[in-house]
């Protein structure tokens, strides 16, 4: 009764408001305007939109290069963007840990791996620029206080182990230290500040922005619009659009609201569209990546994603209908996501496949404890128990384990050609830990085209738009069809730093 009453009352209040002529929210028009006649409310030296890896790195680098008045604007009430909930995996070639572990790697090799996954349409110049500066960016995180696991991981599509991961197994292990560093060096940070358009000067130069201060997410009329002039330039580090169902479905109609998403709610892409509005070149918008390591048993990225990423090299992914493997567990993300989506029952309904790992190997990653504790992963003492729990035919499953173990021994996966280097001596043996897998929308390869100086190119002239720079997931075409895991953080960090250098050199 009380619940019903509450509802009735609320609806009634809504009605009253309308009848009494209370202003009704209308969608705010965000339009880029001419600077001519604009009354600036504020003036800043470097204006950064977005507070993820790219925005934070840009702020620190701009300050290091001598900027005295650097401002970060974030539309959400909290800082860190999607980076604060990402996996904290950082790929770099030629790192100290690679030397220690005897891994032979190079910029060329990392670029080659990424070009392969990009399926011929990645931007080699940008990938090379990022790979060349990745160690420098890793150093920036360490200088700010980021800590990493004392081992490397080999992620899908990478030909060698080159991935660092924060000790907290999350991007927050980087955004929190970078954010604190920003505060320490005097960067001004503004939350609840939504960017609503560029202000363009006579020569087409970005002079500043329109900013809604006091903004409450999804309440488009909240707060108040101010005009802010950017003396040196604007850096757009506004991220991807995986959480904007309309925009992602416009590119790929299969990515409906039913499809899970790993991203923070703020990843809705308005910053990117404002850049398109003033002429930026859209690249690869339809290449939207799903993460093959995600779990249908929890929301977003959760705990399972990093569990799977760590364990894939020495685990077996099984189709529950057949009891057999169905993919190379460390193929690139697209290959694996597509393979998982094909795991269906007789009626064609989704039948999330399972990832089977020996407990003695999985337990080396801190997330293993978490997935079991929070009931999104399970431990079994026998194959029979496991098979019963997931309704997998036990005979073919046993045969598959035996067959897979023979590949562990020989180092040659005759089924799917998996690189068995990291599986060496890691046989699939009881007790097991198991999670369910189902892809979630994770990353937008598309965005605005940039140069290796983080300049945003104009569709009409092919020249950089003056006064505007972009860094991070908002940029498109860098990775081509499928980005390799752990290659976004280096890209965000390096391009954020690059944008800051360009702003300060301009």
């Amino acid at each position, binding site marked *: 009764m009380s619940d*019903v009453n509450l509802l009735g009352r609320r609806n009634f209040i809504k009605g009253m408001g309308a009848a009494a002529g209370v202003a009704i929210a209308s969608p705010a028009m965000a339009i880029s305007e001419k600077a001519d006649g604009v009354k600036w409310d504020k003036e800043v030296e470097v204006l950064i939109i977005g507070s993820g890896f790219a925005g934070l790195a840009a702020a620190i680098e701009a300050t290091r290069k001598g900027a005295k008045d650097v401002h970060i604007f974030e539309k959400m*009430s909290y800082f860190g963007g999607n980076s604060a909930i990402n996996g904290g995996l950082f790929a770099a070639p030629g790192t100290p840990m690679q030397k220690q572990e005897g891994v032979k790697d190079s910029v060329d090799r990392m670029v080659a791996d990424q070009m392969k996954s990009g399926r011929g349409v990645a931007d080699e110049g940008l990938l090379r620029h990022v790979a060349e500066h990745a160690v420098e960016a890793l150093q920036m995180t360490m200088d700010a206080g980021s800590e990493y696991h004392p081992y490397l991981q080999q992620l899908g599509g990478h030909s060698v182990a080159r991935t660092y991961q924060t000790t907290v197994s999350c991007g927050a292990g980087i955004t929190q230290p970078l954010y604190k560093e920003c505060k320490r060096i005097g960067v001004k940070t503004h939350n609840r500040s939504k960017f609503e358009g560029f202000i363009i000067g006579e020569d087409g130069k970005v002079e500043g922005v329109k900013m809604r201060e006091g903004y409450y997410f999804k309440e488009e009329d*909240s707060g108040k619009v101010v005009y802010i002039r950017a003396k040196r330039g604007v850096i757009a580090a506004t991220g991807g659009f995986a959480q904007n169902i309309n925009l992602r479905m416009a590119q790929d109609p299969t990515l409906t609201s039913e499809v899970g998403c790993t991203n923070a709610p703020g990843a809705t892409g308005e910053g990117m569209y404002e850049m398109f509005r003033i002429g930026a070149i859209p690249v690869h918008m339809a290449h939207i990546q799903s993460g093959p390591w995600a779990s249908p048993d929890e929301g977003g990225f959760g705990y399972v994603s990093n569990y799977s990423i760590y364990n894939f090299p020495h685990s077996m992914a099984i189709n529950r209908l057949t009891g057999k493997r169905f993919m190379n567990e460390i193929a690139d993300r697209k290959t694996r996501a597509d393979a998982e989506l094909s795991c269906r029952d007789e009626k064609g309904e989704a039948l999330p496949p399972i990832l089977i790992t020996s407990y003695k190997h999985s337990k080396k990653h801190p997330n293993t*404890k978490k997935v079991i504790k929070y009931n999104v992963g399970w431990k079994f003492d026998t194959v029979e128990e496991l098979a019963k729990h997931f309704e997998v035919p036990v005979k073919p499953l046993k045969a598959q384990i035996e067959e897979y173990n023979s590949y562990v021994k020989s180092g040659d996966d005759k089924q799917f050609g998996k690189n068995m280097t990291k599986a060496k001596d890691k046989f699939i043996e009881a007790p097991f830990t198991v999670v369910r897998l189902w892809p979630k929308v994770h990353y937008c390869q598309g965005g605005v085209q940039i140069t290796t100086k983080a300049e945003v190119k104009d569709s009409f002239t092919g020249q950089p738009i003056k006064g505007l720079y972009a860094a991070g997931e908002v940029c498109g075409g860098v990775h081509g069809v499928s980005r390799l895991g752990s290659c976004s953080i280096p890209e965000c960090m390096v391009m954020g730093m690059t944008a800051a250098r360009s702003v300060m050199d301009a």
Partner: protein
Amino acid sequence: MSIMNNKMNTALALVLGCCLALSAQARDKRDYHEMVYDSGCKSCHDQGTKTYPSDGSCLQCHDVEELVEQTARSEEDKWQNPHNNLHYGKELPCVECHGEHQPKQPMCNNCHTFKFDKHKQ
């Protein structure tokens, strides 16, 4: 039966609605905040009654450090402390997880299955 209920609800809503129209914004509230209501809407609505309280408003009475202590977890789960969490530290505005006039879910639930039995919505 259901028609009766609806009628009753409409009647109740009308009565309540009229009261509300008079007192502008009164809504559901937490009983233990009674004294704050006594001193007027503006004691929380520090940016005017037509908009949300500022993110610092609750902190007039509540101390972040105390809350951090109250919700501390074991070393192993220390970053699941909602008031000092892995992703945002101690800086998450209270209203992301708590609502005075309407219930809210813990933000962690977007991605995690943590249980916060004592969570005050």
